[in-house]
């Protein structure tokens, strides 16, 4: 029996369709289908100037929009050969890591709600607001920030931002321990997670899965470490991995990443130098190509821009981690129960906005 899960389904968190073939409750085949949120951003970007595209890239992924606009700025800076002031880099890193925590918290909320633990949804959503507030103080918006610019950031940090960020990190680390009690301490949560959605290392590497699902399969590959960008090499943190490759490993990796992100925010805030936070970038980009590659909360985000000497990009290609990860759904799902669909697909942190572009 084929079952359609989507496009409107509580499991999907966005618009996509998962068709599963079930034998009783066991899944024998799965076929994801995306494209319900295709907006043609790549085409739209060809008609906009480089600066006008920044809000567009914000709307790529609603969970972590700052990462994407940052990635876009990195790409265009690579194309234009613009050197970013160091203060701007630190501000960017702090903001991105806040965004990463917010994104992971949103994932945790959705994941808990999927598994049926409404309390997890509520608590994580509550604490996510703190980082949203910080980002709002920094950028002026709650979800789509439009903050990074080509050659820096839009404006300097607001007063007391340093103090508030440090306090938020302290609070968050306390709360994270609480979540660990709530989830790891729950027998039912462990039953639903341990050993579910086993994903072997070789499959993960072959199918192009990146980010936390890849690291949860035991591959130590974090672009912040392996192909460092911005000021990450000057900060002390670890790439979190887990050898098991099941849903619990993915949960664990994301929890650990939140701890690491708190560490990074603290260091970035403390090491932030004084100085300019933005330089004026040229309006026109030279002919050539630019490449940006960052570690998105969901995996490897990548952009490839082709400039033709005008103020508009000739071609902008966006690599979405989720788009590739979803294509591996069949490998993960087959053999598990219908109820595991929510755990496995939820554990991937689906963000259809970036997958469909």
């Amino acid at each position, binding site marked *: 029996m084929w079952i359609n899960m989507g496009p409107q*389904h509580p499991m999907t968190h966005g618009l996509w369709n998962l068709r599963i073939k079930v034998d009783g409750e066991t899944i024998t085949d799965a076929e994801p289908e995306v494209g*319900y949120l295709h*907006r043609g*951003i790549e085409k*739209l970007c060809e008609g906009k100037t480089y600066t006008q595209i920044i809000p*567009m890239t914000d709307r790529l992924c609603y969970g972590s929009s700052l990462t994407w606009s940052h990635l876009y700025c990195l790409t265009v800076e690579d194309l234009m050969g613009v050197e970013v002031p160091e203060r701007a880099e630190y501000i960017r890193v702090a903001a991105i890591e806040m965004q990463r925590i917010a994104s992971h918290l949103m994932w945790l909320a959705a994941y808990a709600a999927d598994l049926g633990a409404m309390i997890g949804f509520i608590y994580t959503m509550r604490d996510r607001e703190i980082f949203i507030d910080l980002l709002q103080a920094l950028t002026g918006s709650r979800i*789509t920030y439009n903050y990074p610019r080509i050659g820096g950031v839009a404006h300097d940090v607001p007063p007391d931002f340093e103090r508030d960020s440090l306090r938020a990190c302290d609070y968050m680390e306390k709360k994270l321990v609480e979540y660990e009690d709530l989830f790891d301490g729950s027998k039912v949560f462990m039953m639903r997670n341990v050993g579910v959605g086993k994903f072997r290392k070789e499959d993960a590497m072959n199918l192009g899965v990146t980010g936390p699902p890849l690291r949860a399969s035991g591959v130590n590959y974090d672009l912040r470490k392996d192909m460092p960008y911005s000021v990450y090499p000057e900060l002390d943190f670890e790439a979190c991995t887990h050898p098991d490759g099941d849903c619990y490993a993915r949960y664990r990796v994301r929890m650990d990443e939140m701890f690491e992100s708190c560490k990074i925010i603290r260091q970035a805030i403390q090491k932030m130098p004084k100085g300019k936070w933005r330089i004026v970038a040229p309006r026109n980009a030279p002919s050539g190509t630019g490449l940006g590659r960052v570690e998105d909360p969901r995996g490897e985000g990548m952009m490839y821009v082709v400039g033709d000497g005008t103020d508009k990009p000739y071609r902008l290609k966006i690599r979405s981690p989720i788009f590739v990860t979803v294509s591996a759904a069949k490998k993960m799902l087959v053999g598990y129960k219908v109820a595991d669909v929510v755990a496995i697909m939820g554990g991937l942190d689906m963000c259809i906005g970036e997958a469909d572009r």
Partner: protein
Amino acid sequence: MKADPADPSMGNVLAFRSKDFLKWADNVLEGILRRSPIGTGIDLITKDFFNWATRNSIYPLHFGIMCCALEMAVASAPRFDAQRFGVIYRSTPRQCDVLLVNGPVSKKMKPALRRLYDQMPGPKWVIAMGECAISGGPFYNSYSVVPGVDQFIPVDIYIPGCPARPEALIDGFIKLQKIIKDNKKGLLTGK
């Protein structure tokens, strides 16, 4: 005789299968209740009560499209707490009153969304949340986005913002309550 979906009286009779009964109920009840002073009287008494209930219990469809979906989730989380107003999200369109369109509707999604709207039982309302749903927003000139959800679904409330803030969503719900209150109608006579 098949129940005519356009006739609101059909929906509310517990669906007896017998044709004769439906015919009888149609003729007798409708004659007595709808076109006589009895119906007007009953409406006069119950109108306010039913209207109060309808506007105070708004169940939106749990249906997230894009950025605004996140704000929709936040609106039901502790800080904004839309539950105070009786807003509870249901997952199936059959049990919903409000279709909350919170993002751009692509051409691929359009038939599915229309179908969702058709699956909802009346009386139903549609809220277009965010620029994308109102007019296509930043994607208004895209080749795959429908510029505005009101091109194929009647929309009652427009909540601007990109994305609309949770407060704006809650305000939209309260505006919807006002709309329901203003369009007070009797169940039987429709007046």
